[in-house]
């Protein structure tokens, strides 16, 4: 069974087709990147896959559960780290983690062990009592991903996880994402070509709501006849504009 399978997924806002007939299959344990410039439809795709917005046409199955008819089942098996940091600023790091544990109905024992586990995994132990709003962007993003992992999701969605971070914070976060690779299915959106190429097993390139290319970074380079991934991306997107 695929972790994610979309069938003709389409989202239309008034006269704008944000996502146009998206057909995609993502394997279990895969790290899949949706790459595209602003307005390509990446975030709208994530919003549909995480049941935040309903598609106008088509459906998607998340571990076999429909995003239209099985939303509660889907919500129980996914974790989401939105584009913005999405932490409670006046709560401490520990309280933010506790909040997510509580929302997912963990008992005290599980809550404590989960917080310990994630604090170690994300190096949060030293800042557990700091207010989340006082942390740097990189640490807030790290906390945000840890919060998304509280529920032990089978599929993790990261929407532009390194947007706005400096080079060092981005590199740190890449290490964090790499450490998760293989343990869980990850779908991330990004407009950084380097990020998609370095981190992902496969990449889907989107433009104006359409999926223009799909494959590994090498496959995409070969199909575009370019040596560099960035050149391949530009060639694919430019070609689509001409058409």
């Amino acid at each position: 069974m695929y972790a994610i399978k979309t069938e003709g997924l389409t989202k239309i806002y008034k006269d704008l087709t944000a996502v146009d007939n998206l057909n995609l299959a993502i394997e279990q344990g895969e790290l899949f990147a949706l790459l595209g410039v602003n307005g390509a439809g990446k975030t709208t795709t994530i919003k549909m896959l995480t049941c935040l917005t309903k598609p106008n046409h088509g459906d998607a199955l998340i571990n076999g559960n429909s995003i239209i008819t099985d939303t509660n089942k889907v919500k129980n098996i996914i974790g989401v780290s939105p584009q913005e940091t999405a932490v409670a600023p006046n709560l401490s790091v520990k309280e933010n983690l506790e909040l997510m544990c509580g929302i997912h109905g963990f008992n005290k024992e599980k809550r404590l062990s989960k917080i310990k586990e994630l604090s170690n995994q994300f190096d949060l132990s030293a800042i557990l009592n700091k207010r989340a709003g006082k942390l740097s962007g990189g640490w807030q993003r790290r906390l945000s991903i840890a919060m998304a992992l509280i529920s032990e999701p089978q599929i993790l969605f990261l929407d532009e996880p390194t947007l706005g971070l400096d080079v060092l914070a981005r590199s740190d976060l890449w290490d964090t994402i790499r450490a998760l690779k293989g343990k869980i299915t990850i779908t991330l959106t990004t407009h950084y070509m380097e990020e998609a190429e370095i981190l992902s097993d496969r990449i889907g390139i989107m433009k104006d709501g359409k999926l223009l290319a799909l494959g590994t970074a090498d496959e995409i380079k070969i199909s575009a006849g370019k040596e560099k991934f960035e050149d391949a991306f530009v060639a694919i997107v430019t070609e689509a504009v001409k058409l």
Partner: protein
Amino acid sequence: MRFLIFSSRTAKEILRDTLNLFFGLGFPLVLIVLLTAIQSNIPVPMFELDHLTPGITVFGLSFMTLFSAVLISKDRESALLQRLYTTPLTSSDFIFAYALPLLPIGIAQCVICYIAAIFIGLEPQITILYAVLFAIPVALFYIFLGLICGSVLTVKQVSGICGALLTNLSAWLSGIWFDVELVGGTFKTIANALPFIHAVELERAVFSGNYAGIFPHIWWVAGYTVIAIIAAVFLFLRQMKKQ
């Protein structure tokens, strides 16, 4: 009871904000002390403690709108709400979790105002307890008005509309500082069509033990509270769908 977990977060976010504490609690207390000092030098029946205090408690409750509206609009803008919409929390969990923690805060604010008034000369009486109880529908009106504003306005708009406009409307059109009858005309008509003056008159009637005097004011307050609750639920659900 997942909403209790999120309620606790709402309370922490509000109580840890020092500006909230200053405006919500400090400002009404300053007004009681200041106006009582004026009254002791230039006697004005309007500013006698048994007339002034019930009005100030109502004015203080107007800050509940600001608290809830700011919190919700911030949660919307920071995408914390977007993250939480992908969890098993239901729409009623959200509405209760935003509204209910503010009720004890509002009641505590009324109690503190009366205690402060007693310290500077208000005669302690059982009707204070009744006045606090009758402040509950008033508090609910302001809290759900905050849910309305938080659901449709940005953080910046909330600061202007709830922070400046509403508190001023609530102050000028409530008959706390001057007798609206003296102004008369359109001003009086507008004031009487809005709930603020009725909330103050209701509290004054209860505090003075004039139970016949609570009518028709209680109907105005109850009516506006019901409308605010219905509108808040509708608009909150609408912004949830928009996510």
